[in-house]
């Protein structure tokens, strides 16, 4: 692939708040257009550098194209992509490199916990739980405990996940990264299992007493498995877009 053409495409696509799959599609399509135009100019007798210049000259201003394309992204997807960046406080291309710091992971956990808190509040308020009786007080304790545990686990998973993905992306064959992935998955699973266990022991959790405490034993292995699967999927996706997101662009 031609790097000059890729940079022009990336100048259009990088900042668009859209899902990774949509952005990859945009990259491929815009690149194919430029590449076809270059081939045509070469076939007409231009040298490759001249053909590239000619294709870039008629391609359009990246800033204008970006805003036109951005307007075609569905609102919910734009919101989700913006939230994704806000969680860690980084722009999209730098999401996984360098690895997420403790502070960034805590920020992600805090924001996610806050979102859950708000969602749960509406749920509890709408269902009428938590007001006026003893059982209600227990529900409110569970409500805060759940949001706190969720936030803590989100921070830990983000921090561990970032490292696991970094490792998997850097190795030539996925099997070479497997021991590291397992180690991070076990760490994440232990943290998740302990958190769920603590929840069961806390008085707030008795609001859901019909669920036996022993069920928390499943939490660790389940958390580790889900963690590993998510890391695997994210790695595949990061590897696909790595040639693009690693391009250095001049600031506009």
């Amino acid at each position, binding site marked *: 692939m031609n790097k000059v053409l890729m940079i022009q495409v990336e100048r259009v696509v990088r900042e668009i708040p859209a899902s990774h799959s949509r952005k990859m599609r945009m990259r491929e*399509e815009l690149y194919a257009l430029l*590449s076809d135009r270059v081939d045509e100019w070469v076939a007409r007798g231009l040298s490759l550098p001249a053909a590239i210049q000619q294709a870039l000259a*008629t*391609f359009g201003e990246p800033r204008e194209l970006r805003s036109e394309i951005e307007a*075609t992204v569905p609102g919910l997807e734009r919101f989700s992509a913006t939230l994704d960046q806000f969680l860690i406080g980084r722009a999209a291309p730098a999401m996984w490199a360098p690895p997420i710091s403790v502070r960034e992971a805590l920020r992600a956990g805090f924001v996610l916990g806050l979102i859950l808190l708000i969602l749960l509040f509406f749920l509890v308020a709408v269902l009428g739980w938590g007001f006026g009786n003893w059982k209600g007080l227990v529900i409110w304790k569970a409500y805060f405990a759940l949001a706190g545990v969720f936030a803590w686990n989100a921070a830990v998973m983000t921090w561990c996940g970032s490292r696991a993905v970094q490792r998997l992306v850097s190795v030539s064959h996925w099997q070479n990264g497997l021991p590291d992935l397992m180690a991070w998955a076990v760490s994440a699973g232990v943290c998740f299992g302990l958190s769920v266990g603590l929840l069961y022991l806390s008085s707030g959790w008795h609001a859901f007493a019909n669920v036996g405490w022993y069920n928390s034993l499943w939490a660790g292995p389940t958390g580790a498995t889900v963690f590993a699967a998510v890391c695997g999927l994210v790695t595949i996706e990061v590897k696909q877009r790595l040639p693009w997101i690693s391009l250095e662009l001049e600031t506009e």
Partner: protein
Amino acid sequence: MPDPIQGNQLRGHLETMVLAVLERGETHGFEILKRLEEQGCGLLRLKEGTVYPVLYRLEKLGLVTARWEAEDSSRRGPRRRNYKLTSKGKRQLAAGRESWARFVSVVGAVMGGATA
């Protein structure tokens, strides 16, 4: 040779023009541009990247559908995505043509100058 028609003069018509070239059959962005150039007798000067925002808008509105080109071992280069007119797109094209004909007839009558 008359002055070329620039992209900003085509605003509002580009969607219908793209639908019209897709009426000739399913194809990808570059071919759409070539068809526009060919039918515009070399007088259309589009910023080429702008064809994609148009295609994405049309796809969002359900006027075209898109799918990746089938793997072709004889062709080198990046894979391309082909766009096809939907039945809703065909109806929109017919409406666009009608509206254009009305526009030309009204504006043409005004631009044609006063008759004695």
